[in-house]
């Protein structure tokens, strides 16, 4: 895992540059094992930066989420770069954003962190309920070592690691200006066995399954806001005139929301798992996203967010594209 002193030194160097205005990284959270996004503007702030398996957030989201006020007359916009720390999956969000020409590559400076997996905080909190004091998590060999309240606990990696990491094909960032550690080998692959199971069910059974999940949705749109690929400036969901989707919460509108979002992400979702992580009512959104991901891979031999040169899937056409599934 990347050495924290090296990380801070690098961050200091980066934020001291004239052409960099901000560095987005991680800092310790306010309680328990949590980490949170950090926005570093000067070298003195770089000392709060960390990188641990608790750094679950996909910081690529903040590149497109940033709110810009109109520049007052007579002033120039600040066009300096934003530096961002990314894990393998997060880097794929940057790649996909760049494939889609969301911004110029020159606008950002990427510090790549070869990743050995992050924890699923729900699993951590279930195993260690009620840890209030700030605790730390590190990976040592194949075990997570958790230090809190003056004691240490060791837990096998598979017990706490996020599900997405168990099938991660790209733990080393795919785009970076600088890699902060040695590249790591892919440690897993995705056989989609969970999705194949779901596909086998009868239509009525599938519907009963999703009806229960979707009926819980409170339509906070957190899954949209956190998604690095949901960066349209004007989202259909917020439109009132005309209103494309009603704000009322019922099974029909909720379903319409989830189906639309899944389609908007087809061939674009880069499997960071953030949407499912943030959902306060545990809707298994990755099952939808992974179904589409699997289809796109099988039908078009395409993986989103893997090469900046790739054109976006939905803007390409090959004469030998499969079409036997079209009704």
């Amino acid at each position, binding site marked *: 895992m990347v050495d924290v002193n090296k990380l801070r030194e690098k961050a200091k160097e980066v934020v001291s540059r004239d052409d960099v205005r901000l560095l987005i990284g991680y800092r310790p*959270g*306010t*309680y*328990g094992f*949590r*980490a*949170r*996004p950090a*926005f570093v503007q000067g070298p003195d702030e770089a000392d709060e930066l960390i990188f641990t398996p608790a750094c679950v*957030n996909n910081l690529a*989201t*903040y590149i497109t*989420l940033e*709110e810009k*006020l109109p520049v007052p007359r007579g002033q120039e916009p600040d066009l300096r770069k934003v530096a961002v720390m990314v894990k393998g999956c997060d880097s794929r969000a940057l790649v996909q954003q760049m494939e889609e020409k969301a911004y110029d590559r020159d606008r950002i400076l990427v510090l790549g962190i070869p990743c050995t997996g992050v924890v699923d905080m729900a699993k951590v909190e279930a195993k260690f309920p*009620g*840890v*209030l004091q700030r605790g730390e998590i590190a990976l040592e060999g194949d075990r997570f070592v958790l230090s809190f309240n003056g004691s240490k606990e060791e837990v096998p990696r598979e017990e706490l690691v996020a599900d997405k990491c168990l099938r991660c094909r790209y733990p080393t960032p795919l785009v970076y200006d600088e890699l902060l550690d040695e590249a790591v080998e892919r440690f897993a692959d995705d056989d989609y066995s969970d999705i194949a199971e779901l596909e086998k069910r009868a239509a009525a059974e599938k519907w009963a399954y999703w009806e*229960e*999940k979707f*009926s*819980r949705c*409170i339509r*906070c*749109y*957190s899954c949209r*806001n*956190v998604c690095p690929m949901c960066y349209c400036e004007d989202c259909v969901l*917020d439109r*009132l005139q005309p*209103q494309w989707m*009603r*704000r*009322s*919460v*019922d099974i029909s509108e909720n379903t319409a929301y989830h189906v639309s979002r899944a389609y908007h992400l087809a061939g674009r979702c880069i499997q960071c798992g*953030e949407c499912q*992580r*943030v959902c*306060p*009512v*545990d809707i298994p959104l990755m099952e939808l996203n992974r179904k589409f991901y699997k289809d796109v891979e099988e039908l078009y031999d395409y993986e989103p967010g893997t090469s900046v040169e790739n054109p976006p899937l939905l803007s390409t056409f090959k004469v030998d594209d499969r079409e036997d599934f079209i009704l």
Partner: protein
Amino acid sequence: MALKKLSKEKMGEVLGELSKFRLVAPAKSDEVVVFKQIGDPQEAFLDYGNSTVPPKKFAFPQTETLFRFMVGSPELKEKNVEEEGTTVIFGLRPCDARAMAIVDKLFSWDFDDPYYLKRRELTTLVGMACVEPPSVNCFCTSLQGSPFGTEGLDMLLTDMGDYYLVQSLTEKGEKLAETLSSQLEEAPAGDEKKAEEMARESEGRIRRSISTAGIPEKLPGLWENELWKRVSAACLGCGICTFLCPTCHCFDIQDEVDEGGEGRRCRMWDSCMFEEYTLHASGHNPRPTRRERTRNRINHKYSYYPNRFGVIACVGCGRCINLCPVNIDILDILDQVVDAQ
């Protein structure tokens, strides 16, 4: 008022008895606990910490039809809340009940909200004391609440091991106790003392706190303080902290009209953390970034509300801390408010 005892074996019977009303209780949907209308008493899941979504939606539904209409016709078919019938919300936590008492002030302020108030009148709240504070981020004791608090409740149940101690707190609670008289027994002598002792122990297990003294007065002076930028930098503007807050009560009103011209006017939860919340028709937005929105959320709860109604609009349930995807922590924000110069 007389204390009663409800043996745990009789819980099924009690819930069955209450099913003659609209019965709302915590239930599990996968691993998530939500309050829902219970048909079969078996569905109730009482062995829970606190629900993810607060029971506020049964007084203030997430989407509520106010009236129906036909485009072109002056006739309105108004909602009659009375039709929903008498409701019992069973097993809610003291913070969530207290939150309802706080929100009542708003809905009966300059205008008596007929929908909300009618529903409140028809609802009896049966609370469940927190023998164990349900989350690491509970801080109700910083806000005049308590794990055994009774404000807003009509009846309080305390888990004594094999049975619940039942305390009726209001007339509605007394009436409910009468309805359940065949399931309730006399409480053992000394239980009142024992419950007081348990309450003290539970309070002692609450580990997060803030001294709120002076915060409402201090907030207006911090309008341009740089702390707002700092604490909101990571905010996604997702609204989880407000949708899941038992005291948040903002709504929008929208018309939904079908192709045939049949329509309804409904109100629905809205959130000050959303960009379009304050967007004016002119295109101007007085809260243009998440900095202003976060500032508003804290000011609304900890300054405007206490100024207007004499009580802070936060009960310390900790949901906004537990569920914020980026660890924005209201206690951390308030600490910074206290420290700010």
